[in-house]
C-alpha cells in the first residue's frame, strides 16, 4: 500500500472527513489559547476548568440547552469557587484547585449515572470523534469561530495581561476583566475539544502545543502560528494512527502531541536539552580560567 492510499483511503468515509475537520478546528483553537495559558501560568487552571465543565455539559443535555452554555456556567463556577476558597481560608491555590475541580467532575459523573440518556459516559470522558454528526459539526464550528475571533481580536491585550498586568492597570485597562474573558474562552474551547479527546484529555490540547512552541521561539507572534500548526498536524496524525491501528483516537492524538513535545524538548535549536547541555559544558570549560576575574 502506498503512502497516498494510507492518506486517501479513510477519506472515503464521511465520518472520517467530519472527524478530521473537527479535530483540526479543536486543535487550532486549543493551541492558540494554550500560548497564553502557558505564559500566564494557568496550565493547572486549564486542567481544573476542563474537568469542571462536565456537570454543565450533562445538565445542558438534559434541558436541551447548548453544551457551551452549560460548560461556561460550570467553568465560571469552578473559577469563582477556587478564588473564594483561596481568599477566605488558609487553603493555598493548588489545593483549592484540586478540591473544586475533582468535586465538580465527580458531580458530573453522578449526574451521568442517574440521568438516562443515549449519550455514553465514555464518549464524554474520552471523546467520540468518529461519531460527529453534521449538527455537531455546525455547533463546534460556530464555537470555534467565536473563540478564534475573540482570541485574535484581543490577542495583544491578552499578551499584555500575561506579561505585565500592573502596566495594564496603569494605561486604564481592566486586567481582571481580561482574565475573566480568557477563562470564559477556556470553558468554550473545552466544549470544542470535548468531542475530539474527551473531558479528561482536553487539558493536553490546552498545554502541550503552547509549551512546545515556547521551547521553539523567543517571539510570541511566532508561537501563535507554531502552536496551531504543531497541534493540528499531530492531531491529524493521531486520528490516522487510530484508523489504521484501530486504537483510541483521543488517546493517540494526545500521545502524538506528547511525542512531538518530547522531540522538541530534546532537540529544539533554541531551548532544547541538547543545546542547554552544550552551553553548560562550554561555560564550565571557559569558566575555569575566568572565575576569579568575575568577582569584584
Amino acid at each position, binding site marked *: 500500500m502506498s503512502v497516498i492510499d494510507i492518506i486517501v483511503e479513510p477519506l472515503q468515509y464521511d465520518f472520517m472527513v467530519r472527524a478530521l475537520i473537527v479535530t483540526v478546528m479543536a486543535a487550532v483553537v486549543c493551541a492558540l489559547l494554550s500560548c497564553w495559558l502557558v*505564559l500566564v501560568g494557568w496550565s493547572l487552571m486549564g486542567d481544573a476548568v476542563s474537568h469542571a465543565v462536565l456537570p454543565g455539559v450533562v445538565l445542558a443535555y438534559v434541558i436541551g440547552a447548548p453544551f457551551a452554555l452549560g460548560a461556561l456556567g460550570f467553568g465560571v463556577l469552578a473559577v469563582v469557587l477556587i478564588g473564594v476558597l483561596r481568599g477566605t481560608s488558609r487553603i493555598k491555590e493548588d489545593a483549592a484547585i484540586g478540591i473544586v475541580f475533582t468535586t465538580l467532575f465527580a458531580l458530573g459523573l453522578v449526574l451521568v449515572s442517574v440521568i438516562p440518556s443515549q449519550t455514553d459516559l465514555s464518549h464524554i470522558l474520552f471523546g467520540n470523534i468518529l461519531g460527529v454528526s453534521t449538527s455537531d459539526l455546525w455547533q463546534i464550528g460556530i464555537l470555534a469561530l467565536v473563540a478564534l475571533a475573540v482570541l485574535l481580536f484581543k490577542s495583544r491585550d491578552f499578551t499584555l495581561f*500575561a*506579561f*505585565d498586568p500592573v502596566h495594564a492597570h*496603569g494605561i*486604564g485597562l481592566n486586567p481582571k476583566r481580561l482574565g475573566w474573558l480568557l477563562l470564559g474562552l477556556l470553558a468554550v474551547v473545552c466544549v470544542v475539544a470535548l468531542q475530539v479527546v474527551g473531558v479528561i484529555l482536553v487539558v493536553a490540547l490546552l498545554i502541550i502545543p503552547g509549551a512546545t512552541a515556547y521551547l521553539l*521561539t*523567543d517571539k510570541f507572534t511566532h508561537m501563535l502560528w507554531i502552536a496551531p500548526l504543531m497541534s493540528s498536524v499531530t492531531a491529524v496524525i493521531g486520528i490516522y494512527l487510530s484508523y489504521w491501528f484501530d486504537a483510541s483516537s483521543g488517546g493517540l492524538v494526545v500521545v502524538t502531541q506528547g511525542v512531538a513535545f518530547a522531540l522538541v524538548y530534546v532537540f529544539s535549536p533554541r531551548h532544547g536539552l541538547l543545546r542547554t547541555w552544550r552551553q553548560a559544558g562550554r561555560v564550565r570549560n571557559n569558566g575555569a580560567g575566568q572565575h576569579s576575574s568575575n568577582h569584584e
Partner: protein
Amino acid sequence: MTTPALEIDNVSVSYGEVAALTGCTLSLAPGQVTGLIGMNGSGKSTLFKSIMGVVAPQMGTIRVDGADAAKARRAQRVSYVPQSEDVDWDFPLSVWDVVMMGRYGLMGPMRRPSRADRAAVEEALERVELADLAGRQIGQLSGGQRKRAFVARGIAQGASLMLLDEPFAGVDKRSERTIIALLRDLAADGRTVLVSTHDLHALPSLADEAILLLRRVLYQGDVAGALEPENLTRAFGLALGGGAA
C-alpha cells in the same frame, strides 16, 4: 503655586489586619526626581500599587496633575518600571514589543501600531540608547539595559509621572550612573520621577528631594536632610549600618 504632579492625601491601605499605609500624605512638584526611601515592608510597593490602581485605598485621595488618578491613568499620564523580580524575563517578547506596549492606551481596540506609534517607539529606544538592541528578547539584556527598556516604555507612552520600583537592585555601578543620568534628563524635560530605592549612596546624585516612608511619610525635603542620622534611624529603626537597609 503650580499644580502638584502627584498629590497623595491621607491615604490608608490595609491588607486584612495588616496596615501597609496609614494616613500617607505627600506632594511632588513637577520636573523633579524624588527618592522614596524605606525598608522592606515600609509601604513603598503599596504606595506604587495605589497610584497604579492595582490596590484601592480604603481612605484618602490620589491626584495626578490635579486630576483623579484613574482619569490620569486613562489619559496615559502614569508609567511604571517594575522591580526585576516581578518580571518574567523568559517571556517571548522583544525590547521593541515591550516598549510598544507603552503605546497600547493610545491605539484602537486591536492595538495595531500606526506609523506614529512606531516612530514614538523608535525615538524612545534612541533616547535610552537601546535602538541597536530593539530585536533582542528582553531576558538577553543586562540588568541596566532591562531597566532602560521599561523606562523607554514610559517615554513612548508620553507619561508625565514615572514610577520606578527599586531600579538599582542587581545593577552594576556604571549602569546605575547611566540610569541616573537618564532620569535627570527626563526630569529636565518636565517629567516627574519617583524612585523607590535602598541605595542611599546614589541618592545625592539622583534626587532633588527625598521622602522617608514607614507606613506614613516621616520626612519629605532635601536629600541632605533625609540622610541625617536621626531621620534615617526613625525610618530604618536601629538596625542601620553603612547605608543599605
